[in-house]
Structure formats: structure tokens, C-alpha cells
């Protein structure tokens, strides 16, 4: 069985799709594209597709990962092109590599997020970010299907900065602070909206509009530089 690892993006409007939605879309795309996916044995055969930690519904991403098992060998780039064509625009397969040794899941140690806060000025955002970084803990509440859950949003934050790069898209001419967040993958996971809740908690920052988040990367964490590396680098070599 040929093992492939792929990175895909969830862009634009399709950030509102859930992880389960992507699973269905991928399984159908595999069939339409004729990718010879392997199936598990037994009473109820499942396609050999493994999904790795997925961004929450509503969060866009440039770096989501999936592992496939193929029953027949295919050129990774052919698979990439065929799957990308078969998936709707907005679910885009960006790279496919042949899996090397080692677990991909273990390499996904941290994520980089871009957080847009429409209606919040950069100055105000910086004030809140400073307050959060100065705090030792930030206990935020998240509502789940099973009730509410408290988690420490501060502990997982490796870096949090306010970007002032020129050319950043600004919502309709109004203020829109852009934050860059590097967060460790913890259990429970700390999501971008948990970090926003932490800013509200420590500094009363209440964004007037729903913030937009995009995962830019996930992979091995270099603690010294707060950089997140490419998890497929080891497979490429």
C-alpha cells in the first residue's frame, strides 16, 4: 500500500464547512477522480483516509493534513492535480508527498493563526495583547455540546503580535487589527476564538463584529524562535 500525505486549504466561503463536511467531500472526490484508495478489511470496509487535527468550523486554513492509503501506486503530483480538480473551489489540495517514516501527527506541535478583528484599531489591539501576555493565566469558558468548559488560553500561547504590515486587507475602510498567533497544540486545544475570549477577559476588548481566523501553518515548533516548521519536510528528503 502506498502511503501519501497531503496538505489542503480551506478558503473563502468554505471556511464555514465543518470537518465532517470535508470528509464527505474528500471521499466523493476520491471516487470521482478515480484515485485507487485502499479499504480496510472486515464487515464494514472503510476507505484508508486519516484526518489530522482539523481547524474549527468558521476558521479558514492554508495547512490542513490528511493521510491516504492507495491500493495501487500513483505519482503524488498526479493525485494532487486530480483531487484538487475534483474538489470544489475553496477546498484546494496544495501538496501531496509520499509518506516517509515517522508519524505525521507527532510533528503537528503548534499552529500559526492570522486573526482579523474588524472594527478594532491596532492601538487598542496592542493594549489588549500586552495585557494578555503579561498575565500568567487566562481562564476562558467555551460552550460545547456537553455544556461549558473552562480552559487556560494563556498557557498555550507561544507568541502573539499585532501586525502592521502595509497592504493588509481592511474591512470596508474601517479599522481591522491583524493579529499573528502562535499556539501550541494542547488538550483541550486552544482555538483562535478562545484567545479572543482571553483578550475580552483580561482587557475588556469586545470586538464589534465576529473575528475572522485563518490557520497559516501547523507543524514542529522551534521554541527558541517561535517558528513553526513544515511537517512534510522530513518526507520530502
Amino acid at each position, binding site marked *: 500500500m502506498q502511503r501519501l500525505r497531503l496538505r489542503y486549504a480551506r478558503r473563502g466561503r*468554505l471556511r*464555514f*464547512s465543518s470537518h465532517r463536511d470535508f470528509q464527505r467531500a474528500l*471521499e466523493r472526490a476520491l471516487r*470521482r*477522480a478515480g484515485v485507487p484508495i485502499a479499504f480496510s478489511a472486515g464487515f*464494514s470496509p472503510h476507505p484508508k483516509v486519516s484526518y489530522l487535527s482539523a481547524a474549527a468550523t468558521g476558521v479558514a486554513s492554508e495547512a490542513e493534513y490528511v493521510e491516504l492509503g492507495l491500493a*495501487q501506486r500513483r505519482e503524488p503530483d498526479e493525485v494532487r492535480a486530480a483531487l484538487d480538480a475534483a474538489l*470544489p473551489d475553496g477546498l484546494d489540495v496544495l501538496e501531496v508527498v509520499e509518506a516517509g517514516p515517522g508519524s505525521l501527527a507527532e510533528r503537528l506541535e503548534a499552529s500559526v493563526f492570522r486573526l482579523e478583528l474588524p472594527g478594532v484599531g491596532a492601538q487598542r489591539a496592542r493594549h489588549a495583547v500586552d495585557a494578555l501576555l503579561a498575565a500568567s493565566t487566562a481562564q476562558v469558558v467555551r460552550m460545547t455540546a456537553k455544556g461549558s468548559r473552562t480552559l487556560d488560553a494563556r498557557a498555550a500561547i507561544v507568541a502573539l503580535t499585532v501586525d502592521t504590515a502595509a497592504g493588509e486587507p481592511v474591512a470596508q475602510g474601517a479599522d481591522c487589527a491583524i493579529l499573528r498567533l502562535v499556539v501550541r497544540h494542547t488538550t483541550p486545544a486552544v482555538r483562535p476564538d478562545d484567545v479572543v475570549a482571553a483578550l475580552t477577559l483580561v482587557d475588556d476588548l469586545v470586538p464589534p463584529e465576529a473575528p475572522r481566523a485563518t490557520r497559516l501553518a501547523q507543524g514542529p515548533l522551534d521554541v527558541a524562535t517561535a517558528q513553526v516548521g513544515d511537517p512534510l519536510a522530513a518526507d520530502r528528503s
Partner: protein
Amino acid sequence: MRPAPDSVFPALERLLPHVAKPIQYVGGELNAQVKDWDAAAVRWALMYPDAYEVGLPNQGLQILYEVLNETPGVLAERTYSVWPDLEALMRRDGVPQFTVDAHRPVAAFDVLGVSFATELGYTNLLTALDLAGIPLLAADRTMDHPVVLAGGHAAFNPEPLAPFLDAAVLGDGEQAVRTVSELVRGWKAEGCPGGREGLLLRLARDGGVYVPAFYDVEYLPDGRLRRVVPNRPGVPLRVAKHTLSDLDEWPYPSAPLVPLAETVHERMSVEIFRGCTRGCRFCQAGMITRPVRERSAPTIAAMVDAGLRATGFAEVGLLSLSSADHSEIAPLTTALADRYEGTATSLSLPSTRVDAFNIDLANELSRNGRRSGLTFAPEGGSERIRKVINKMVTEEDLIATVAAAFSAGWRQVKLYFMCGLPTETDDDVVQIARMAREVIATGRRVSGRRDVRCTVSIGGFVPKPHTPFQWAAQLDHETVDARLALLRDAIRADREYGKAIGLRYHDGKPSIVEGLLSRGDRRVAAVVLAAWRDGARFDGWSEHFSFSRWMSAAEAGLAGTGVDVDWYTTRERTETEVLAWDHLDAGLDKEWLWADWQDAVNEVEVEDCRWSPCYDCGVCPELDLAIQVGPSGRAVLPLSVAGRA
């Protein structure tokens, strides 16, 4: 010519993070079509008045969507009911009812075509009109508003919606929507002579379209209808349904929509025939879709092949009212099972009758997939009641079929029944427990295992227009509930088999509301409006349905008319009474329907006209058609599904 409307997506997008399942409003499904607005002369918004997860898979809407978009100069987009959480935000922010294809406001289209599979979608129509900014009353609409056109099975009695509809099309929609499009195009090209009324007159006179405003309803002092008469010249006394004569010429849907969101059906569905010859007396679908018109096996197989390639679905559904009756069903299922062997594609035949069922058929179907459960619909617990409803299943047939199924490796059987059928007694329903027991005992005996299961699913019977039971009294909900309780107790009391029998049922109240709307006349429209104003929405969903709200609405809406909910539901009609839908022609002879009703009460059965002589229900001569059944004489060409990519 008005400019193309802007997409409402920017305003909508801000609301999506705050609502459940936002992906249902985003569109962009595989095989969705967005045609150029300005290049189209006639523009349709097609609506299924329920949540996206129910509406998207609906075959009728998908067929019309493709037929219209394939027509040069015509454009069709889709809209569905938005959940109450988004509705509230849309009202707050002034976001109108939108299509999911290009997020255009529904009010900007020429026609809003709404497909009603069930009467419980009526209040959702009012929500959509209100959110769209279209006046609820047809009489208040101007040239700025679309023509609101109803279709689907409930359109065979649209009277409770009459004040809110501009028009209705009965029967098959494929050719009808093309005809309507042509009439709209011509009217627009000529500068819209006569305005809105001018268009509606053309639709009524030349399009076979029912325009409620062109008929007056008169009442007798005791509340019954006196008559329904046209109030414009050139408008027919009775409006006939549309019937497609050759389904092979209309192989739709050819590229079904593939949603990102989860929906209730996720399979490639092909309608293998339309209509039904069995004559089950309670079944409106079977009666109003007559005569039977089969698709040939080669066409079905070609549709399955094209559809799977276009979608990537892992399951194929061969749909009809009684799929095992298709004259080529055995060779068809074998050919499909052969073709898809090894591709992990499963085949399903959702409606199979017990006496036509062939275990070999089931085994073929499950060759590529799992054997989970089989479903049958005896509908009645005793042989006597089954004669009344003309569902000719003997207990021997059922047990023999079930035995064959269990010995072939099937483990679960689901049985559908109804409660409240005409002449029914407590015993008829309690007998269901005995039947279920027999099924389990047989299953254990032939399979040698104890883990066989039988699920009994039972719902309240609602008499429907255009059926022999249209005169019947609906059973009141207290008696329905009492009878279901007896059944439940009988099953629970059984120490030997009770645990292997599952029972699914709803209480009788929603059926009464369905009954009110099903056989309602124009006076019921006031009830629909009152219920809606009081917050009624998604009435088919138990978390939203409120019986007390509807009863209050009925009291207010029917005040002063002399009739009430019981008058519409639990009252038995008389032979000479004018029924609210008599002016709408499903092709059936009313005298034949009455005679069949009498036969029912006298427990006389009628044969299936596919295999036995015609009993003159009236459809074929009236429509100048005959039932179209195979075999086609053509084999399904063996197509190998070669490995791709």
C-alpha cells in the same frame, strides 16, 4: 430592464458565524449552476420550503433546476427555508430571502416556484415570502413581484394557500415549466400587456396552470361548498394535471447536486418509474401520479453511470412507489450489481412491497454493500383491514418473505403501519404485535440465531384528496393515542419476544393539523396565516410544531364560518358533497373513486392493473395514454468500470 441584483452574501457572511450549520447557506455545491443574469429572459427561483438538509436532495426540485437551466434564455436558482436563528438576524439586518447559487434576492426573479411535498411546509412559504419582501396576499402583488407558483403533490389541493399563491401546476413539472417559461418570455417581450393579470390569464388559458383568483368559491348555509366556478372567460371549469408520456426522453437529474453540508439522503437517485398501479386506497401519491410510465433499463443504467461519475456518491437509489414492480427489475439489478462489483457502491430499492419482493433481488442489491435491514409496509395489522385499504399482503406472504430474508443473512426487518384507517378497531392495531412476534419467531427459527430484530413504525392516517378515502372520517387524536398505547403495552407485555421488537410512533396531534390542511378549503387560509403570525414554522419538525398554536389559530381563523377543525378532519363526507378540490383534475373518475370507497368499506379488493384487466379508474382514457411498462427488450450493455486516474 432592471439591473442585475447584487449578491447579498457580504451582508449574510457577517451573520454566518452566529448561526447553526452555516455551510447550508453558502452554496457552491458541486454541479450547481450560476448562469448569467443579464443573458436570461426568464428567471426562476425554485424553493423547497424546508431546511436545506431536507430540500437539497429533493429530486423534483433538482429535475426542474436542470431542465430550466438547460433551456436557452432561462435561468434557475435555488432557495430553502432558513432556520429561525438566521431568520431573526436577517430581519434585524434587512437581509432578504436569497438563493444559494448566487445569493440573489428571491424577489428579483420572475417566478418563485415552490414544491410542496407536504402540507406542513405551508407556514414556511409565508416566512419566505415575508423575508423576500413579497406581499403575502397575491392580490397585493405588483409588477415588481415574482409569480408565486406552487407544485408538488400538495398542489393537488392548494386551496388553503389560495390567497397566497398566484398559480399552481398539478402533476409532472418538466414540460410544464418550459411552457410557463415560454409564456412569461412572450409576455415580457411584448411589453407585459395586461400587467400581472395579463400574464396570469395566459398561464391559465394556454399553460394548463391553475390560478386560484380566477375561481370563486360559494358556500351553502350549512358550511359545505356549493360550487367552485371560473370568474373569467376562457378559464377551464376543471384544471387538468400535466403528465409526461416518455420518461426516457427526460433523463433528469443527470448531474445531481452534491452538497458540502450533511443532508437527509446522500445517494445517486434514479426514478425508475412514475405512477403506480397497485391501487392502495390510502395512497395519494399512487393515485395522482397515474398512469405508470417506466424508464427503460438501459436509460436507468445510463443515468446511474453518468450520475455516479458526476457526483462520487457511494450509493445508488432506484426510486419509485413500488420499485420491485418494474418490469425489468431483476435483470436491471443484476446488471448494476455486476457493473459496480468491487467498487464499494451500494444499491438500494427503498420501496418494495411484500408480495412482489424477491429475496434474490435483495441479495443482488446487497452484493456490494452491507446487509443491514429490509423495510416492508404492510400498513395494516389484520388481513381484514388490509383488504379495506387494498394492500393485498397475506400474513403467509409476509412470513414467507421474512423467512427467506433471515435465512439469507438479513438480521433486521422494519415494518410500516398506519393507525386510524377507515373501519379500524383496536384489535386491528393490536394484531401488529402478533405479526411482529411471528416475524421474530420465524427469524430465530430459520437463522438459528436469537439476535434478529423487528422495528414497527406506525403513523397516524390522514385521508387525502383524490383518493378513495377522501370521504373518510379521520380518527381523532385521542383514540389514535389510546390505540397506540394498547399496541405498546401488547409488545412490552411479551416476555419472549418483546425486547426484540422496537416501536416507533408519534402522537396523533400533528396528523390532525395535516388533515386540516390536506382537505382544507380556502377558509383554512385564515388559519394558516394566524398560525404563522403566532410563530408557526417548520411544522414538520417536532421541536417546532405546536398543536395548541394551531388550534388557537383555527378558532380565530374559522370564527363565524360555521365550520371547525372537526368539520374538516373527523367528519365523514357525503357522496354528493362538493369537495374543495373537485375543480382540480388528477385524471381519476370521481364515480370510480366513490365506488372504490364503497368496496373498501365492504372489504372488497381490487387487482393491480399492471397484471390484470383495467378497472376503469379513468386516467388512461382521459389522458389518452396507457400504462407504459416494459420490458424494453434491450439489455443493459455491460459497461466495465475501468480503473481511472
